């Protein structure tokens, strides 16, 4: 019970932090396409960056459920700020924790937790999105280490990252490496003009004859790839599922608040039944999405193998709900919803990305359909 109370207090504090320090600046982050260092430092001070990781590494040891609540609290205020937690905790942190050597964990995780070093997960490439197995970035053994060549794209926080988990191939073998920004041959190019996640320092990462020492390999060369990618994407999907709930809830809050104030035809628009229908659907969908996330979180907490597919279901549904509710929130706002003066305009853009990152909805549908086809067949 003591640990539940501790975690509840952390999440309550995160909600206060989001309300007071993040939400008021979310529009500014989006407009300037930058998550400022002071916000990152504040999150590091509060140990949010590796919130799901053990306290021994500087994390908060939040269990999956409370990690979900924390993700919702921060992402609700600003998707790029929440996205930093997704990248640090779920993608880089969890992959290192599960698959990294003791030396790699001891070196990098405390630096990440303190915000001294920012990590990024470099899987996608200009020609490789959903088909992760087809990566074209190459590695070759050389001396006691490896040489990497290739180009990564759409790397969240890549423009500011101090190191990258880079996935590369050598013939049929695929391996994950830690590549430090200061290694010769590493260049990054910020990507601007994006639909959403504009403050997430998204970048292209170019690797030209980059020498990587053997001790920077994560997992077994060749044999560990499935686990590094699988761990990162599984945790990433869980975080994005909660991000979907966050966007939907924020859009719902904005929709309801606006509908209760806005007057047309001498009535508040919330008195019109057609607007009430929109609100009813938004409430129902948001509650349903949260229920799926909670179920996935409880299964993850128990270490149940079915948590993987339940996380996929939660991610698919919650991101879809975020898109629908954010679109309806714009609709309720009318013309005002099309202006950046109102947060729903940003939420509308942010929601769409959730259906793409950490596995498109179509990839999730395939996985869910396979599960359904074997689970629900009468024999």
């Amino acid at each position, binding site marked *: 019970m003591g640990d539940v109370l501790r975690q509840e207090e952390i999440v309550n504090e995160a909600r206060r932090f989001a309300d007071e320090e993040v939400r008021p600046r979310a529009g500014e982050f989006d407009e300037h396409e930058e998550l400022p260092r002071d916000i990152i430092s504040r999150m590091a001070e509060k140990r949010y960056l590796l919130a799901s990781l053990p306290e021994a590494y500087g994390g908060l040891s939040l269990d999956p459920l409370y990690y979900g609540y924390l993700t919702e609290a921060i992402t609700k205020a600003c998707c790029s700020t929440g996205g930093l937690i997704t990248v640090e905790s779920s993608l880089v942190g969890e992959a290192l924790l*599960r698959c990294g050597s003791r030396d790699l964990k001891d070196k990098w995780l405390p630096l990440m937790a303190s915000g001294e070093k920012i990590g990024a997960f470099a899987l996608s490439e200009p020609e490789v999105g959903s088909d992760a197995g087809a990566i074209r970035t190459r590695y070759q053994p050389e001396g006691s280490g490896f040489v990497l060549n290739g180009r990564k794209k759409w790397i969240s926080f890549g423009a500011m990252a101090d190191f990258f988990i880079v996935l590369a191939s050598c013939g049929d073998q695929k391996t994950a490496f830690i590549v430090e920004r200061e290694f010769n041959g590493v260049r990054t190019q910020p990507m601007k003009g994006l639909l959403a996640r504009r403050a997430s320092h998204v970048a292209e990462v170019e690797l030209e004859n980059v020498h990587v020492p053997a001790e920077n390999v994560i997992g077994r060369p060749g*044999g560990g790839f499935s*686990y590094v990618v699988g761990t990162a994407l599984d945790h990433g999907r869980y975080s994005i599922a909660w991000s979907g709930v966050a966007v939907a809830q924020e859009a719902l809050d904005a929709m309801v608040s606006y509908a209760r104030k806005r007057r047309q035809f001498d009535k508040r628009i919330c008195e019109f039944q057609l607007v009430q229908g929109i609100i009813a659907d938004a409430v129902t969908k948001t509650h349903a999405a949260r229920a799926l996330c909670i179920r996935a979180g409880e299964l993850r907490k128990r270490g*149940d193998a079915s948590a*993987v597919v339940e996380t996929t279901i939660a991610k698919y549904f919650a991101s879809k709900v975020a898109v629908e509710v954010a679109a309806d929130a714009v609709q309720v706002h009318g013309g005002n919803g099309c202006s950046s003066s109102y947060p729903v305009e940003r939420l509308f853009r942010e929601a769409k990305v959730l259906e793409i990152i950490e596995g498109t909805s179509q990839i999730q549908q395939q996985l869910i359909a396979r599960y359904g086809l074997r689970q629900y067949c009468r024999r």
Partner: protein
Amino acid sequence: MQPAEKIREFISKNLAVYDEGAVFGDDDNIFALGFVDSPFAIQLICFIEEEFQIKVADDDLDIENFTTVNRVVEFVRGKKGL
């Protein structure tokens, strides 16, 4: 139920193919045959840890340890000192 039976049953329940005639032997590579999808690698680790109460360490996370029923059985027995 013996470890081999438990592992075989878990794999059978999670096949990514729905051909009624799809069968796999204890030495068949279920990943190479396309009998399971990519998230299954993580699911199998969760299952092994939960079912057999063992911790799969970072050094153990080599796909070659988990490609066939017999390899998984060998891995579990090794971990449990059987």
